């Protein structure tokens, strides 16, 4: 594309820079800023909307859950395992040497102080996203008495820590807090 004006005489000691170059730069920048600003609105449009965010926490009454029992609640479209651990299960979880774990984490770091009987987990296998079995007493719970993933055989202990692969990580913990001794708020 032969541009007649680029051959124009340049001024002020910049032999290769013409007024046309400057105009092109300014025009291009203005257009880019405008398109970028609009593009941001379109991208943000696809993020979770306000009504989705408003449903981002659930409350759960713990009274009906007896020791050894677990319940599954839905939070942000994901299954949350809430389990009432027996004293023996707590002891097993606390006594494991961290050297035996592939994703070392102490049980105390996975429960709330003073509420060690309650373990709250995101019930999604860290391998490929299946929901592990074991939250119901009738389910297979694997060798470590926690959870067993039917998809590829990963096993988790009573603290939700991975004990046998292929899952690489412990079951994740959702953000939650005790509103009282018998009520938690997830999210």
């Amino acid at each position, binding site marked *: *594309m032969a541009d007649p004006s680029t051959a124009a005489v340049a001024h002020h000691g910049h032999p290769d820079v013409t007024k046309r170059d400057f105009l092109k730069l300014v*025009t291009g920048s203005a257009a880019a800023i405008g398109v970028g600003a609009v593009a941001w*609105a*379109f991208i*943000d*449009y696809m*993020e979770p*909307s306000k*009504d*989705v965010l408003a449903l981002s926490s659930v409350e759960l009454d713990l009274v009906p859950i007896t020791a050894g029992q677990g319940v599954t609640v839905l939070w942000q479209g994901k299954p949350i395992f809430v389990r009432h651990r027996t004293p023996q299960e707590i002891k097993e979880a606390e006594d494991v040497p961290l050297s035996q774990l592939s994703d070392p984490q102490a049980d105390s770091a996975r429960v709330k102080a003073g509420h060690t009987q309650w373990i709250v987990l995101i019930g999604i296998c860290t391998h490929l996203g299946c929901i592990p079995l074991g939250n119901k007493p009738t389910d297979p719970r694997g060798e470590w008495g926690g959870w067993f993933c039917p998809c590829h055989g990963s096993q988790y202990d009573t603290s939700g820590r991975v004990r046998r692969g292929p899952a690489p990580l412990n079951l994740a913990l959702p953000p939650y807090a005790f509103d009282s001794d018998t009520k938690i708020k997830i999210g």
Partner: protein
Amino acid sequence: MAGQQHKSEFANPVVNWIDTRLPIFTMMQKEYGTFPTPRNFNYFWNFGALAMVTMLIMIATGIFLAMNYQPNAALAFDSVQRIMRDVNYGWLIRYIHQNGASMFFIVTYIHIFRGMYYGSYKSPRELLWMIGVAILLIMMATAFMGYVLPWGQMSYWGATVITNLFSAFPIVGKPIVTFLWGGFSVDNPTLNRFFSLHYLLPFVLVGVVFLHVAALHVVGSNNPLGIDVKTPQDTVPFHPYYTVKDSVGLCVFFLVFALLVFFSPNYLGDANNFIPANPLQTPEDIVPEWYFLPYYAILRSVPNKLLGVCLMFGSILVLFVLPWLDTSKVRSARFRPIFRQLIWVWVVAVIVLGVCGANKPEGIWVVLSRVCTLYYFLHFLVILPILGKLERPLPLPESISRPVIGGGGPMPSGAAAKPMEKA
């Protein structure tokens, strides 16, 4: 073409490699880079590009709206309100889409007027013009169905009234309406199919617009003088001259568009559409969107149902045969002293029809809409055919470039008798 490989002239090796095998860059360069375009365009020639840009904006915003819209009679109204309140920037994207429809019609109507004023529909551009009228019809169908989707009172009753137009036809009328509805009233099946077609038709529109542009690039653009390009001196390359000129128009266009979207997004809307559709109650007065008002006035001006419907459709269909109704060989109104005045009378008639359509059909509005409907058709069916024979056109300039760069001097006076040559 067997064995003959296209030789690309692009310096960039990647572009060159692609272009040698699929010469899209050569094509773009030919059609939008060096494309010879009459050098005397005024700003009326912006509006085709503006319409193209608006169409793309409508498709982009529409695709995003469809991500959150529910085409179900029970959910549609609330899903639109959710877009307005809960979805990030949903208000912006919906207001762009809603007001974009108005902007689309504004620029398209000006584009059509440009064609009428400068005689762009005349030989050899008849087919180009007819494809344009088809585009207008597709636009209208799309806009109508889109207006139904928010499922407010005006959506619902607009859909009821417009689909009932077809009941005017004897015998087949009622079955056609039942077919359009997919039931015995406007209801969920109607909404579902309108959504489906509202999503489809814009892509049909893109195809027909492609034909419109392709036809334009075969015969070349008309220009304000309405005379043919004769020498390369009469043209300038499309880029940078008209890319820049279109960009200036685009900035003004975006300014108006933004004023509408950000400062009075509901100015052109109807308050009744904030009420969810209610099949048991018709709003006090049914008014279509502003861009349909003139046709609506034509419909109501005739006391006979079938005749009113025929005239309304006829008011657009008559545009298809405009190239043959206008018998004058001179294209541009600039050289047609009488036509130049009468075309404005026609514009006034259309605007008055629009005002009539917005008012209740009583008293003076009935009289006015009848007079203007009569003039609308008189203009096409009587004035244009006769005027072409009677009117004595002004002398045409020898060429496009002569008044601009060629030696000056008075225009040759003998040109008046010279008929326009066919391209």
